[in-house]
């Protein structure tokens, strides 16, 4: 009888999670296990994610692959799962708990530094830049933001960071409004960095509606159709891209290995790459950026 593995994303509406889903589906096919894909829809609904985990514990799946919305709030349900003999693999964002089997994620701090480096280069080492943070209490984006700030402080002293304290909120909609207001406030701006897909998409839209797209140097994080179009059009100067497909794949693969009693690494890095207009057409990038999701999902 095949293993049943629950894969719980932070949300279901971002394209990032679609890729994770596809990667997980690929692994499921490869190792002949059944995956159950379910998560909250808003990326700040901790309560609902807790309930989803609890329900899967009730359902006695064999393993849970979880992208925790909060590094603390999800500790307890994970502990309950582990105590009931369910293996847990954490992906994407950290969790302040022991007992889970492995942590499969991007090195977010490095990703943040990579973004800062790219932004520093395209800005020529000087000018005014701002950081629009994502949402309160999200561990992975906080690391990216930290990496960005550290790199800027160490290597690009000529760049003045005019705003680093505003949050975009969990949806594109809230990010868009916030970005619009920030862009109006700082009319002479040279660079922008956003730490995830929804904040980046909101910011891109704000730049477009403000007529500043392409004029302000802009580096984002994560990929999606919207953001890639921006990159192609020259409205963005770089995207730090994780490999969500690989993350989903490795998450499920690790879970299977744990279930089979194999030894797995505590920390598995899925890597980040910088995508620019120049390299986005190379075959390996195309494979990374637009994996054939439907091939894995439509069955």
């Amino acid at each position, binding site marked *: 009888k095949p293993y*049943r593995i629950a894969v719980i994303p932070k949300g279901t509406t971002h394209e990032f999670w679609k890729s994770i889903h596809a990667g997980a589906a690929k692994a499921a096919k490869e190792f002949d296990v059944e995956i159950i894909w379910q998560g909250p*829809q808003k990326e700040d609904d*901790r*309560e609902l994610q*807790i309930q989803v985990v*609890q329900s899967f514990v*009730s*359902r006695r799946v064999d393993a849970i692959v979880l992208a925790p919305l909060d590094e*603390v709030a999800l500790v307890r349900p994970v502990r309950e799962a582990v105590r009931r003999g369910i293996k847990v693999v954490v992906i994407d964002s950290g969790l302040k708990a022991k007992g889970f089997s492995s942590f499969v994620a991007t090195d977010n701090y490095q990703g943040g530094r990579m973004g800062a480096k790219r932004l520093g280069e395209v800005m020529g080492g000087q000018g005014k830049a701002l950081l629009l943070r994502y949402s309160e209490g999200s561990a992975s984006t906080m690391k990216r933001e930290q990496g960005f700030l550290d790199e800027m402080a160490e290597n690009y002293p000529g760049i003045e960071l005019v705003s680093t304290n505003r949050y975009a909120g969990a949806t594109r909609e809230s990010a868009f409004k916030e970005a619009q207001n920030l862009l109006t406030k700082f009319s002479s701006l040279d660079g922008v960095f956003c730490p995830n897909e929804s904040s980046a998409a909101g910011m891109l839209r704000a730049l477009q509606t403000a007529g500043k797209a392409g004029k302000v140097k802009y580096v984002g994080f994560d990929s999606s159709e919207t953001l890639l179009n921006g990159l192609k059009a020259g409205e963005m100067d770089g995207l730090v891209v994780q490999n969500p497909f690989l993350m989903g794949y490795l998450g499920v693969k690790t879970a299977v290995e744990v279930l089979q009693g194999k030894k797995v690494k505590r920390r598995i890095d899925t890597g980040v790459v910088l995508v620019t207009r120049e390299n986005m057409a190379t075959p390996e990038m195309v494979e990374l950026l637009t994996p054939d999701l439907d091939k894995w999902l439509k069955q």
Partner: protein
Amino acid sequence: MNPSLRKALAASGPFVGLVFVYILFAGLTAWQGGDSRDAFLSLYNSKTILTQAVIVTIGALGITLVIIAGGIDLSVGSQIALATVVIAWCLREYGGDTAGIGLSLGAAALGILACGVCGLLNGVMSALFRIVPFIITLGTMQIARGVAKWIAEEQTIVTPESMLFNVMVVEPQPDVATSVAPGIWVAAGLIVVVVLTLRYTVFGRYVFAIGSNEATARLCGINVTLQRIWIYTLCGLLTGVAGVMQFANLTVGDPTAAVGMELDIIAAVVIGGGSLSGGEGSALGSVVGALIMAVLRNGCTMVGVPNFVQDIVIGVIIISAVAVDRLKHRATVAG
């Protein structure tokens, strides 16, 4: 008809609904087979459902009072967030590495008190200014949320380990049938208190009287203003307890928690037979309403139906619960 029988029948509507929903999902999971077949009916899952229903249940107890008295309270979700933040703040400020029992209880009490103050404000303003409670509580909803963010400095507040964390553990001692989350006991205790209060105290009778016909209440010498302030304050305190449970669930103080939960709670009360025009409703009914929602959520996850089905089903259930009730009333009047 025998009066207690009559009451039992009237209350039975939502209960029948609960049984129906439960059997439906039991059937669905059985039909689906596989692992989920026994999982849904398992003892552990029942405990999970009950634990998940705790917050809405306790919140619904408070709003039941308000709704029976002909009012409404939209600020409940924000109040719950406020409570989690106040508790977490207290634990972080005064706890070292782990917070002791005394501190934990003190923090919980403070959280409950904060909500009580919100309720008091709601009551005083709606009683004195005679503004529709919808607006008052829409305002306090924003204010409580803002204060919560303020205290939390727009972050989640991480706290030292506290005994409160254990309140919502689904099964504190595994494989002991009677071992359930302490939160369930708290909820059960509060249910008993509210049921008894509504049924056996002067205050409870006044709540019904005010909602049923305010003019009559006034004619009978009831100080409607004062009672109303009391009712909102009590609702606030109960909401505070729900906030403690929410904190136990999240283990962090989260100023963005429970957005829109007021509507869930109001829906539970309405499904349980409460009428927004006042004078009708029962604490037990509201509890059953909360359970219906919890079973629905849990069952949908078990069967693996997508979220959207769940949304639609809940919407349909809300409307039909009230429509059926209305048709029943009409039939009674005609007969």
